[in-house]
């Protein structure tokens, strides 16, 4: 139900662009205004989100021990999974951000032979997540050919490598295939695995369907519902040089694609997709486990008004002596008496 709801939401978005840009001819709205608003919303929203996270204090280290912590000299420390130095943290973050180390640890729990419980390593999620993210990154970088003139060699090179298989014309990009396969895996995982379906929400399905919609509309535009690519470049270059123009021959499929991308940009800062910025701020990954070497002071400690015993005794010394209570500092008038 949640999946279908999300799917229809994406269909609705396609329909909006189809009717708006295709039927009503609101090309300027869908080709210029919506993308600008989306980019602005994305950048500002992203910053506000991260700043809000930055404002929440992390008073102590959260050492999720994925390895032996720093201990006695003869016990070997796992310097990357449980680092006590900044260098170690940098390495741990590197493996987390670039290679998804946490997903690599994914395990699956199974009951077998009736009541026996077994844990096994499960690398599929890691593999497909990695494939998905790197395809997406490549596709994103490849799109820079629409935003630069002349196209820098780096982007030309990425384009060439991606089309290395030289299948058909225009050549098939490998990432187009990989991202679809990876997205299908991520989607089917949510739909077919009962345990994961149970915890999946529209907020999990919607981004998947949205990105699937973006990928499919892009692939359609490149291989099937062709449109004038040179005119598209004129439009996109107009956007980034702040001289927006709408060439005649740009097809509706382009506006659908751009509308879905704009939706993604707007949806990004207000959704779980913010894990892109969040991964850098995850306290269990980016703090060294040095609780026993360094004193971490709770940043929200306010100055507590203390009344020490000394001050208390100063205040009540006479009364205490009168009542026969022991005092640490004798009364000054009768030093000799109290001593004996």
């Amino acid at each position, binding site marked *: 139900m949640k999946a279908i709801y999300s799917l229809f939401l994406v269909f609705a978005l396609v329909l909006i662009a189809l009717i708006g840009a295709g039927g009503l001819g609101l090309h300027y709205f869908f080709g210029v205004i919506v993308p600008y608003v989306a980019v602005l919303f994305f950048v500002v929203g992203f910053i506000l989100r991260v700043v809000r996270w930055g404002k929440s204090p992390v008073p102590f280290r959260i050492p999720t021990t994925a390895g032996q912590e720093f201990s006695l000299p003869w016990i070997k420390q796992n310097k990357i999974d449980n680092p006590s130095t900044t260098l170690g943290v940098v390495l741990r973050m590197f493996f987390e951000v670039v290679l998804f180390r946490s997903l690599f640890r994914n395990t699956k729990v199974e009951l077998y032979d009736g009541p026996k419980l077994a844990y096994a390593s499960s690398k599929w999620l890691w593999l497909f997540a990695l494939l998905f993210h790197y395809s997406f990154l490549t596709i994103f970088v490849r799109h820079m050919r629409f935003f630069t003139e002349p196209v820098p060699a780096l982007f*030309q090179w990425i384009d060439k490598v991606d089309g290395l298989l030289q299948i058909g*014309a*225009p050549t098939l990009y490998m990432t187009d295939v990989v991202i679809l396969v990876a997205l299908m895996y991520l989607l089917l995982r949510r739909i077919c695995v009962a345990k994961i379906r149970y915890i999946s929400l529209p907020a999990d399905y919607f981004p998947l369907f949205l990105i699937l919609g973006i990928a499919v509309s892009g692939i359609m535009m490149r291989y099937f519902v*062709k449109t004038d690519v040179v005119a598209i*470049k004129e439009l996109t270059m107009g956007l980034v*040089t702040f001289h927006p123009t709408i060439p005649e021959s740009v097809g509706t499929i382009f506006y659908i694609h751009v509308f879905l991308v704009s939706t993604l940009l707007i949806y990004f800062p207000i959704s779980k997709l913010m894990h892109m910025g969040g991964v850098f701020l995850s306290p269990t990954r980016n703090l060294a486990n040095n609780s026993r070497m360094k004193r971490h002071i709770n940043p929200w400690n306010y100055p507590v008004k203390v009344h020490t015993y000394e001050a208390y005794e100063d205040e009540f010394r006479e009364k205490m002596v009168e009542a026969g209570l022991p005092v640490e500092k004798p009364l000054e008038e009768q030093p000799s008496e109290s001593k004996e």
Partner: protein
Amino acid sequence: MYDSGKIITGLIIFVVLFTFPFWYNIGSAAYKQPKLELPKDVKECVESKEFMRTEHMQLLNEWRDMVVREHIKDYKSKLTGKEVVMSLTKTCMKCHDNKAKFCDQCHNSLAVSPYCWDCHVAPKGEK
């Protein structure tokens, strides 16, 4: 904000990277669609101009398959009804005899580099 030094540095890097297309193009002249040198003695391409602009890669791919796999040599134009020989060098490049001033104009602008010329011969004198 806590650790503001690190967080703000990170945010600046992010924003600079993300807005790359905007600052990369500062100062460069407004983009114009590449100027193409069209054949002078003929008026029409194999198909309509719009079709050629959007579909010429697919058309070439079909031609290649037809010739190499099916042994069909002639293509009947939907525009003029005339028959043309399906050949990259002998048909396309006979009219569009300057690759550098025609095909490459668009292709360079969009970082497309058809590998066809690894084997096929472009008209003489041009690359």
